[in-house]
C-alpha cells in the first residue's frame, strides 16, 4: 500500500529543504569571497612583517638599505646591506623597457584600429595572443641563447647586460600594452574620427591631435600595467641580465634587479639570517611597488571618467 503524504506536508518539507540549500549556497559563496579577501590581507601582513624584520630585529639601517651601493652581506666583519644597485636595476629595466615597448604597443594598436581595421586586426590579434602564451622562462632561454651571444659579438660587452634584460622585457610586456591600447582606441566614439575628417584633417593629424589625446588616460594605463609586469618579472630577466652587485654605468654593463637577487639567493641563504631577511625586505619593496602601480592605474581611470 502506498503511503499518501498530504500536499501540505510535501510542500512544506520541500520548501524547508530548499531554504536549507539557499542558506548553504549563500554561505558557501560568501566563504569563497572571504577567502579571497583573507588571502590578500594575509599576503600583505605576512610579507610586511617579514620584510620589516631586517630593520627591526637585525638593526639594518633603512637609509643604508635604500641608498647605499655596497652589497656585501657575507662579509663577516663588516656586512653591508645596500640594496640600491638592485632597486636602481629594477627601475632602470622597467622604465627602459616601457620606453621601448610603449611606442611599439600603441603603434600596433593604432595600426589595428585606424590604419587597417579589417585585415590588420585579423593578423595582429592572434600574434599578440600567441606572444602572451609564451611562458617567461622560454623568453629567458631564447634571450640567453640568441640575444646574449648576439650582443656580445655585435654590440660589445659580456652580452649579459641591462640591454639584454630591457629587450627581453620589452617583448614580454608588448602584448599587455597592445591589448589594452587596442581596447582603448577601439572604444573611442566614432564621431570623434568623423568630425576630424570632416574638417579636412589627414589620418595622421586625426590620430595625433584627436584620438591619442582622447585615449591618453587608457593608453597610460596600458603602459603602467606593462611596467608593473616588467617590475615583477623574475626568471627571464635573471637569465640574461648578468646578476652583478655593482651599479651599471651603461647599457652594456651587467646588472641585477630586486627580483633576480631574490630568485638567486633565497635558496642559498639560511632562513632567518640577516641576509635572508634583507631578501624579504626586497620582496616587500616589490609588494609596495605593485600597490603603487595599482594606485596609479586608479588615478588614471578616475581621470578617464571625467
Amino acid at each position, binding site marked *: 500500500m502506498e503511503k499518501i503524504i498530504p500536499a501540505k506536508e510535501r510542500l512544506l518539507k520541500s520548501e524547508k529543504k530548499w531554504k536549507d540549500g539557499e542558506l548553504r549556497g549563500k554561505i558557501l559563496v560568501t566563504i569563497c569571497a572571504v577567502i579571497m*579577501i583573507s588571502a590578500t590581507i594575509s599576503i600583505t601582513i605576512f610579507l610586511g612583517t617579514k620584510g620589516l624584520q631586517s630593520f627591526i630585529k637585525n638593526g639594518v639601517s633603512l637609509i643604508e638599505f635604500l641608498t647605499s651601493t655596497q652589497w656585501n652581506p657575507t662579509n663577516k666583519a663588516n656586512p653591508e646591506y645596500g640594496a640600491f644597485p638592485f632597486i636602481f636595476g629594477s627601475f632602470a629595466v622597467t622604465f627602459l623597457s616601457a620606453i621601448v615597448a610603449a611606442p611599439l604597443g600603441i603603434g*600596433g594598436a593604432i595600426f589595428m584600429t585606424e590604419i587597417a581595421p579589417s585585415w590588420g586586426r585579423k593578423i595582429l590579434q592572434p600574434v599578440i595572443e600567441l606572444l602572451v602564451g*609564451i611562458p617567461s622562462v622560454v623568453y629567458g632561454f631564447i634571450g640567453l641563447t640568441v640575444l646574449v651571444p648576439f650582443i656580445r659579438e655585435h654590440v660589445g660587452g659580456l652580452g649579459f647586460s641591462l640591454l639584454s634584460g630591457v629587450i627581453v622585457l620589452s617583448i614580454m610586456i608588448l602584448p599587455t600594452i597592445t591589448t589594452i591600447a587596442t581596447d582603448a582606441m577601439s572604444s573611442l566614439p566614432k564621431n570623434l574620427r568623423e568630425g576630424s575628417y570632416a574638417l579636412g584633417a589627414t589620418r595622421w593629424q586625426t590620430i595625433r591631435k584627436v584620438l591619442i589625446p582622447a585615449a591618453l588616460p587608457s593608453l597610460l594605463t596600458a603602459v603602467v600595467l606593462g611596467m608593473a609586469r616588467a617590475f615583477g618579472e623574475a626568471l627571464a630577466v635573471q637569465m640574461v641580465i648578468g646578476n652583478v652587485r655593482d651599479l651599471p654605468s651603461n647599457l652594456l654593463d651587467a646588472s641585477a634587479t630586486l627580483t633576480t637577487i631574490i630568485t638567486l639567493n633565497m635558496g642559498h641563504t639560511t632562513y632567518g639570517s640577516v641576509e635572508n631577511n634583507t631578501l624579504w625586505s626586497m620582496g616587500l619593496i616589490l609588494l609596495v611597488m605593485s600597490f603603487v602601480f595599482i594606485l596609479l592605474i586608479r588615478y588614471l581611470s578616475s581621470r578617464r571618467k571625467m
Partner: protein
Amino acid sequence: MKSKTADRIATGVFIAIAIIIISILVGLFSFILVNGLKHVSFDFLTTPSSNVRAGGGIRDQLFNSFYVLFITMLIAIPLGLGGAIYMAEYAKPGKITDIIRSCIEVLASLPSIVIGMFGLLMFVNLTGWGYSILGGALALTIINLPSIVRVGEDAIRSVPRDLKEASLALGITKWHTIKTVILPTAFPSILTGVILAAGRVFGEAAALLFTAGLSTPRLDYTNWNPFSDQSPLNIFRPAETLAVHIWSVNTQGLIPDVEEISSGSAAVLVISVLLFNLLARWIGSLIHKKITATK
C-alpha cells in the same frame, strides 16, 4: 601638401611597427620549434632527467607540470566559481563589494615571485610541509584566482535575464536557480576562460621555485599509493615542473647538453600552451555555433 607627406610617413611607420611585431613572433616561434622539435622524441619524453650526464629526458617534469596544474585547478575552480557567483549574484554595491574587487585587483597585479615568497612563508615553512606539490598548487591558485573570478563573473552576468527571471517566477529559490539555470548556461564561457588560465599556469615558474621546489624524488610510476614517498601521486613531495626545469638547467645545471634539453623542453612547453589556447578557441567556436544555430 606638407600634412599629406606627414600622413604618408606616419602610415609607413605604423605599418613598420606592425611588421616588427609580427616578425618578432615569427622569429620566436620558428626558433623555438625549429631548434626544439629536433630534440623532442619519444625517448626524450619518457626518460627521467639527469643532473650530471647528457641524454636525460623530461618524463618526471612533464608529469609534474600536468599534476600541479590538475591540483591547482581542483582548488582554484570551485573557489573561483564561488567567488564569481558571490560577485555576480549576491554582492550588493557597497563597501564590502568594493573591498573584494580591490582584493581581486591586488591579487591580479602581484608579481608571481612575491606570491612565491608568500607561499614559501606560508605553505613551506609555517605548515611544515617543505617543498610540496600542494604548496605549489596553492600558490598557483592565488595567481590564478583573479582571472577565474573575472571570467566567471562575466559569464554569469551575461546569462540572459529572462532565463533567470523565468526560473524565479516559477517559485524556484535563488540558489536553486543558480545551480540549475545560471551555471549550466554560463558553463561554456567559463570553460573557455578556465582552459586559457590553465595554459598560463602551465608555463608559470617563478612562484613554483620557492613552493614546489627544484627537485623531484625518484618516482616509481607503478606505485599508485598517494601516501608513499616514491609515488607520483603524493601531493606532499617536491616537484620540479617543466618551466622550472628550463630555468634550473640553464642557471645551475651541470649537464653538458643544456641547450638540447632546454630547447626541447621549451618546444614541449610552448606547444602545450598552444594546445590549451587552440582547445579554448575550438570549444568557444563550437559553443558559438550551437548558440547561434536555429535548432
